[in-house]
């Protein structure tokens, strides 16, 4: 079953500050994603990978086309859906893990990771689950109750990954999940994502790392100047 169908998606930035200059970031993107499928998104810097991810998460407003997501409540076009519907989906079905961690100061690592569960479920269970994930990811225990703002790049990245997958999303959008990690932690992150795949989660993953792409993805889509290359269409 397709969880995502993207049709003729385009994104043009119109910069009023530069007298209405237009920048075309994505052109006629078309692909679909099956339940439990992991797609690798590749391409040079500036080819539109992150723009595509952000359109899928609605951080960017697509200029045309549609993004049909098969939510638990039925099909919904993420381009046109009401803001409240998007907020509801982000809480339960779609998560986005960016390259950079942006967190509220003075919230502990454990609470940052389980924030989405704290809102609804049992707090102690949520924190226990977060601690379990941080343990798996090898984050030193003395950091669990510290504030991630002060963490190193690799530590922040693990927090970021843990936070995005803790709620078993149906669609995970993940940007460079293994970039600043050592080999062992990289394998742990990959294993955790593969574990999610077994539960039916679909994943779109941006990476420049051949090892990660090889181990993780079912197929790859290559972007060039905002368009999917032909090789990508065929596979």
């Amino acid at each position, binding site marked *: 079953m397709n969880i995502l169908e993207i049709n003729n998606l385009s994104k043009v930035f119109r910069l*009023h*500050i530069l007298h209405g200059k237009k920048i075309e970031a994505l052109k006629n993107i078309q692909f679909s994603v099956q339940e439990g499928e992991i797609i690798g998104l590749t391409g040079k810097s500036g080819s539109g990978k992150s723009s595509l991810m952000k359109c899928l998460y609605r*951080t*960017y*407003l697509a200029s045309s086309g549609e993004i049909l997501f098969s939510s638990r*409540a039925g099909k919904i076009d993420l381009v046109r859906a009401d803001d*409240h519907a998007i907020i509801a989906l982000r809480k339960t079905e779609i998560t986005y893990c960016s390259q950079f961690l942006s967190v509220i100061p003075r919230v502990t690592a454990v609470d940052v990771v389980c924030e989405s569960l704290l809102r609804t479920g049992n707090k102690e269970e949520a924190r226990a689950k977060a601690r379990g994930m941080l343990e798996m990811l090898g984050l030193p225990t003395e950091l669990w109750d510290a504030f991630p703002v002060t963490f190193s790049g690799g530590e922040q990245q693990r927090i970021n990954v843990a936070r995005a997958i803790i709620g078993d999303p149906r669609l995970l959008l993940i940007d460079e999940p293994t970039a600043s990690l050592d080999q062992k932690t990289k394998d742990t992150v990959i294993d955790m994502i593969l574990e999610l795949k077994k539960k039916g989660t679909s994943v779109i993953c941006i990476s420049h790392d051949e090892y990660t792409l090889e181990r993780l993805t079912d197929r790859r889509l290559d972007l060039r100047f905002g368009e999917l290359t032909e090789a990508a269409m065929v596979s």
Partner: protein
Amino acid sequence: MSGIKDNWLLKVRNLTKIYGEPNENTLKLTGPSCNSNICPETESIVACADVSFDLFPGEVLGIVGESGSGKSTVVKLLYFDMEASGGAAWLKPFSNGHSNMLDASNQQKRFIRNHLMGMVYQNPRDGLNFRFSSGGNIAEKLIMAGNLHVGNIRDRASGLLDKTEVPVRRMDDRPSSFSGGMQQRVQIAKAIANNPPLLFLDEVTTGLDVSVQAKVLDLIRELQQELGIAMIVVSHDLSVIRMLTDRTLVMKNGRVVESGLTDQILQDPQHEYSQLLVSSLL
């Protein structure tokens, strides 16, 4: 996803406040396209016009904009600090959302303020009575909401001060002897004393130093998470908006120029003014 539309807590339509005597051209001759909120024909001032939005239970909505854009006016109209010139607002817990609360009688408005809303102002002097002790300020709100048992009131007040990290032993001191951050936390304790489903926060961290700011933001976030209070956060500080809110309205010259998910407003602003605002972020 069809049922989602009816899930609102507060529904606001065409909320308008005009000072002076407007004529039929006033709304046309003011707003962002004219870069002014003063009507050239009548010199009436359009503080805000045609503001519409839905707020869901537990949702945090941000309002950003420069000084004089009308963002504080919106919350002051909704909290009945000022009288609206036009528009309507419905609050679910008030007559089940069937009557426009802006048309309610004064007695009903007092009930709504005392039982269903809380307000935290930028200046603690607007929200607190400096002649009362900090505990007395909280008691005042509790008494207005119908709590008359002195023992219960004292227990609840000390619980609230504890929650907002104000030393309970200073319960009988006046807020004038407190630091700015502490005064702000007493004000928040007072605002949530009646367990309101809706809280307005008007520039609550402006003028506080960063560590105190972080403490106040922390408290607000925690309250939202624990108590599920819906909030409208007015701020010109985009970092505050980013940290606290799910959705944001951008205002200029009394009008909403753009509304959307907060991360979308901050990363892909559409309106000329929002782009300027975001690119001015340090």
